[in-house]
Each structure stands twice: as structure tokens, then as C-alpha cells.
């Protein structure tokens, strides 16, 4: 069955039409073209009309000011990776995803709005305190990404809205790590991922962040646990490593599924964080 397709001429046209029908928004297509496939030779199985937004000028490009970097939703992962101002930890996550050809097509907006449990940019964007700007015909609103993502394939996107851009506060992270565990080196989906940053100045931890991806249905970030190490001396922080690890252990609710087991995910994630903490605190 062929469904209605709409190719807007600009963002105004797109937002106007979005209010009229319940469209699938189609950007790079790397998820939808696979998820909606049928047997060989058959057309994709879309049961709702489709709107193609990938080439809208207003949804492409990366800008910045003194405080923030603004990444429009339809930038490909490769374009974000190649941008000088994109945070290094985000680039580490991107280069771990899929393969060069897919990164040329897949969009950062798609990775966010899809809200897949294994979306690798999500935990990093949680860690970076990113926000999303949502636009509809008559409204613009900004939400923390941790509020926008509600669960596996669940977001706060309302009818008639689209994800316009991702806004990331500018900040230097002295030590940063994105560690992904998959079944192979390239072109793999996460069994789990651990993202960590730490800033140490004058022997005191002045910033520490952790986010876990692909374990719970929604990426995990807990400011309360992070604050246990902030403003502590390096030696005090070393003494609190197990308090921090135990805190996170209680937050992990992994599943057994085709990619891994609950036990492997949870134990491995904690071990990776433990290694990061030992190395980060010993480095200074």
C-alpha cells in the first residue's frame, strides 16, 4: 500500500502541514527504511503519511554563541563529528556508531527523537545537560533532554511538533570517556555504554558526570551521586569511589535480551566506571 508523502518546501510549510495530519517524520531514513521494510521488492510499510524533512535548510547547520552550540535536527552524525565546536565526548560516541556510510545519512535529530534504548548520542547528551527545542506552527518550547526522553521509543513530542534543534552548553571537560560495549568493533549496537567526564583543579574535583546508556530503557544520569565527589579533594574522592559505585548499582535495571544479559550489562557498566574513577583520580 502506498501512503501519502509530503515534501515541504520550507519549515513554515512543514509546521503548517504537521498540524493537519499525523505524519511520520522522515529525516535520514536509516532507521525507518529498515523498520518499515517488508519482503524483498515490496514497498516500505508505512501506515501513516510520511513527511520528508531531511533537506529543509532550516533544519540543517550548526551554530554557536559564547555559551551554547546549536545543532539543527537534520545534521548528519558525520556533520556533527566534523564540526570543530562539537564536544569531544559526543564525537567519541558518534564515531562508535554504525559505519561511515550510515553516519553520512543518520541524523542526530533522528537518534534523539527515535528515543531508542540503544541510541548512543542520548547518554552523552544527558551528560552534557543538552536541551531540545521543539517547534510547532504556533509554539516554540525548550525542554531538558532528560525530560524530553520519557522511555524506550517514548518522547514528549506533541502532535504537530518537530524537534528543531539540540542545544548544548559549552564547557571544557578535562577528562572524558565514552566507552561502548558491543559484539564487535564496528557497525555494532550497544550492549551498554558508559560516558564519564571529570574536571580536577588544584587537587579538587570541580566537576564529575556519569551517564549510562542501553541498560535501562532511558539513559541514566544522577546529579545527586555525582555531587558526592564534587568539591572533594582527590584523596577524599578516592575514598568515596565505592559509595559512588554502590549508588549507581541501585539505579541499573538491565534486561536480558538478544544483545546481552541483565547481569553482564550491570556488572560491566560498574566495572567500567570503577576503572574510569581509579584512572581519573590517580592521573592528577
Amino acid at each position: 500500500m502506498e501512503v501519502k508523502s509530503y515534501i515541504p518546501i520550507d519549515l513554515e510549510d512543514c509546521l503548517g502541514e504537521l498540524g493537519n495530519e499525523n505524519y511520520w517524520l522522515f529525516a535520514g531514513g536509516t532507521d525507518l527504511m529498515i523498520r518499515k521494510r517488508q519482503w524483498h521488492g515490496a514497498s516500505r510499510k508505512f501506515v501513516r503519511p510520511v513527511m520528508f524533512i531531511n533537506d529543509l535548510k532550516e533544519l540543517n547547520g550548526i551554530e554557536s554563541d559564547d555559551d551554547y552550540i546549536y545543532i539543527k535536527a537534520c545534521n548528519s552524525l558525520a556533520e556533527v563529528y566534523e564540526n570543530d565546536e562539537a564536544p569531544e565526548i559526543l564525537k567519541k560516541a558518534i564515531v562508535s556508531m554504525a559505519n561511515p556510510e550510515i553516519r553520512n545519512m543518520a541524523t542526530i535529530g533522528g537518534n534523539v527523537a527515535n528515543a531508542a534504548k540503544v541510541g548512543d548520542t542520548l547518554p552523552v547528551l544527558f551528560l552534557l545537560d543538552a536541551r531540545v527545542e521543539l517547534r510547532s506552527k504556533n509554539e516554540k518550547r525548550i525542554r531538558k533532554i532528560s525530560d524530553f526522553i520519557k522511555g524506550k521509543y517514548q518522547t514528549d513530542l506533541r502532535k504537530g511538533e518537530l524537534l528543531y534543534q539540540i542545544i548544548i552548553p559549552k564547557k571544557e571537560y578535562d577528562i572524558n570517556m565514552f566507552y561502548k560495549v558491543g559484539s564487535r568493533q564496528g557497525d555494532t549496537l550497544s550492549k551498554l555504554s558508559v560516558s564519564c567526564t571529570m574536571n580536577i583543579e588544584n587537587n579538587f574535583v570541580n566537576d564529575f558526570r556519569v551517564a549510562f546508556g542501553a541498560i535501562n530503557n532511558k539513559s541514566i544520569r544522577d546529579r545527586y551521586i555525582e555531587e558526592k565527589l564534587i568539591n572533594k579533594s582527590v584523596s577524599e574522592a578516592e575514598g568515596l569511589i565505592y559509595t559512588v559505585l554502590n549508588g549507581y548499582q541501585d539505579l541499573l535495571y538491565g534486561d536480558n535480551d538478544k544483545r546481552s544479559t541483565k547481569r553482564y550489562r550491570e556488572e560491566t557498566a560498574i566495572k567500567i566506571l570503577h576503572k574510569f574513577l581509579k584512572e581519573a583520580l590517580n592521573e592528577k
Partner: protein
Amino acid sequence: MQIEIKFNLNGEDVSIMTDPVRRLLDVLREDFKLTGVKEGCSEGECGACVVFVNDILVNSCMVPMANVINKKVMSIEGFKQTKEFEVIEKGFLEAGAVQCGFCTPGMIMATENLLRNISNPSVEEIKEGLSGNICRCTGYQTIIEAVQLTVKDGGELWKSNLTSL
């Protein structure tokens, strides 16, 4: 829903009535009979179907026709007309990097893409550059050697960023 979609295919302006959701891969193989573009995994992992769209290497099995409107598409058949192809082909032949040949068009396109970005890649960079292409025959070693031979014999082509199509 059928609409008229215009794009440039291997240097020639073309137009086709088709569903915008239809895959570029199917249009190239079925409508234009460009069967050098292969269908392998159908999910973006094997790289047998890669083409350049506006000089960006993509898996045509994941590209809907709506996303090529007014763009330049180059398949292996178009790339075959270039000087760069001749040098890569020679490298693949000399290294014995072709066995069944199914992955070869994709490997050649990915090699071109790699050399456009890094004119003298290391082994690690070759592996990363070809990481979206699967070969089940060669074990990859001869393909890596083919890229190295290509660079040795004709690397100047990419250093000057010439595109001869």
C-alpha cells in the same frame, strides 16, 4: 503515491515517476538497469549498494527517492568513467582483492571515498574507511593491500583533489 522525481544520475539529468518512499537502490537496479549496485543485507551493513549522493557516500538501500530530489547520484557505473576508477581497479586486480566480486563495486566506491578524505591512509584508517563494507571471500587482507597499491601507484590523483567526472 507517485510523483515526478528529477535528479542527476552519473552526469545526466533524469526524471522518473515513482513513490518517494521507494529505495534509490531499487530505482537504480530496476528502472535504470544499473546492476553494479548490489543488494546484500538490505539494512546498511554490507555496503554492496553504496553510491555517492552529492559526493557523500551512502547506502542506497536506505535512501528514499524523496531524499535525492535535485541531487547528483553517482553509481559504480558512473564512477567507472573516471581516472580514479582506473587506478583503484588496477590496485584491486594486482592485489587479487576480488574473488566472487559481489562486494567489489561497494569496496571500490568506499576506497574512493576514503582517498578523497585521506589521500595516504594508514592500515587502521583503511580498516575504518572500509568498515561499512563486508567481504565474505577475501578475509580483507588483499583489499587492504589493494588500497595501499592504489595509493602507491596513483595517490597523486587524490592529493590534488581532482574529480574527473
